[in-house]
């Protein structure tokens, strides 16, 4: 990611935002996590394919593993809280490791663009083999009423065929 460095205070605020978001998810404080989402959020996890070099993007622009608005993410959170979402009853232990945070000016006033690397792990029950996913996240954050909120997220997974049996969590 090239371009002018943003003000260090903004970079620090964005990093703190991403770490807080990770903490809320890993603590299953999903309602508080939803508070960090802009009402106009678009959140996508495109399907990746291996293509011959130079033949178009590996990430599909029409098919996704997640293709969400704040409304559908809220529905997913409501489901997880219902007690009948068997994929996460009892809950798994998840960990979002967020590194390599790069912050640049965003596409509009009051926005910043942030890229970060994500290592996601899940332990379900007494399983001893970590379920893992790795990705680069490309986010746009928007500041409104003095707070940063997530306006756009593209999770660029490294995996084509997912090595996890479901995505009953958020990336």
């Amino acid at each position: 990611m090239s371009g002018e460095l943003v003000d260090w205070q903004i970079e620090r605020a964005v990093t703190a935002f991403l770490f807080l978001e990770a903490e809320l998810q890993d603590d299953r404080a999903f309602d508080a996590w939803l508070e960090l989402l802009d009402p106009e959020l678009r959140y996508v996890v495109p399907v990746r394919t291996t293509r011959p070099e130079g033949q178009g993007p590996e990430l599909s622009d029409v098919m996704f593993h997640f293709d969400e608005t704040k409304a559908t993410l809220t529905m997913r959170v409501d489901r997880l809280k219902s007690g009948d979402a068997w994929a996460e009853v009892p809950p798994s232990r998840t960990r979002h490791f967020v590194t390599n945070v790069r912050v640049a000016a965003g596409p509009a006033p009051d926005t910043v663009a942030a890229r970060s690397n994500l290592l996601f792990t899940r332990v379900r029950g007494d399983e001893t083999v970590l379920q893992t996913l790795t990705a680069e996240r490309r986010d746009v954050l928007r500041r409104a009423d003095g707070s940063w909120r997530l306006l756009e997220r593209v999770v660029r997974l490294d995996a084509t065929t997912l090595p996890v049996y479901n995505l009953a969590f958020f990336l």
Partner: protein
Amino acid sequence: MLSAGRQDLAAARLAEAAELLDGGYVPSWIYHDPLLFELEKERLFGHTWVFLAHETELPEPGDFVVRSIVDDSVLLVRGNDGEARAFLNQCRHRGSRLCQAEVGRAKNFTCIYHAWSYNREGKLVGVPYDKVIYKGIDRDTLGLVPVRVESCEGLIFGCLDDAAPPLDEYLGDFRFYLELVTRRSAAGMEVVGVPQRWIVEADWKIASENLVGDAYHTPFSHKSTFDVGLLPFSSADARPGGSKTGLHVQAGLADVAMIYRRPGTFMGYPPEVVETLRSRIGDRQRALLDHGTGTGDGVFLNRFHLFPNLSCLNVAAVIDDRLDPYCSIRLWQPRGPGVMEIYSWLLVERDAPQEFKDASRRAYIVSFGPSGMLEQDDMENWRTISATAQGTASGAVPQYARMGAENDIVPIADWGGPGTAYPTQYFDLPTVTFLKRWVEHLQKGAAA
């Protein structure tokens, strides 16, 4: 090939399974068993038609996808003559995997080891230094090893057995019902982008049986989706006698689940789609669609499973008070004992407005696929079945598949379509039929 000793063991275990199934019981161990996996590769998937791709995934000459039939990588490529052909994805020289990409377009396929290259029709067209080092290599006999390919309604299947009956015969009566899904658009159906793929530590048969005919799990496994209002019907509709569990059809090698529809309703599809469908199917199909159930109601086909491992789901989701339908075909690809890779394609009507396609995609993704609110819970269920199947004692436990056995469920007498239709989805006959067919294939393979 299995050793003679292993073959004898297999025969004994299959006989034991068949006997249990006759009584309406399912042996638990079949959902995770190394010997069975070997048998399935050799005797079932080596001889049957297996779904590879939809024709819209390779629209132009040179377009290719790499798929597989269990553990054989298969390269499916459209030739310059417009024909889609399949080959083992393996160089004839030293056996390297020829194509490393999963999807793309190629003029030729060149091996990375010694640069032998093959054209879009699988013919060997390039052998470096051939005049010097081979003194006249016979290129005609060293083309890629072909895999039989036939298609129906845009669905391309492959078969590793040249002696197997043609696809049309394989599909048989099922084709009548398949067309109710594929003929809703004058331009045909198309795949939205690429399939989702993911690995699940569950046997492919469990997933298949769920789509063959497990209406019973819906109100319980998927309770949370009723709670949050995702489904376009209530939990009561999914109970025995409910409006969404009305019909099951066994047609050829397929199982088809249907629901009654009131005039003017079609799972949220716009009226044009219904009119297009009506104009592109035969009189008998039209009559069934409109009022062929014996009760005078029309039908909507919302699920099918084609033996061995291809399923289709055609339902709808409610998001933001909108009802949006989606149609997904899914392949339960065996990857090892108790492990499968799921391929799930979203199909849409090719001539539908973009807005419909986008809404259909969102409805599908929130419901099915690895993040789907329904499918997430299925994965959790299914993998525990393959897990318990490994237990020394648990594996020997017969599972209870006698739902409906005492209920005297009689076929619908004046059913308007081929096959046999039953007035409920709450019975285990489809599951037992599926597993008996599976046993028969494994036993038949031994004789061949």
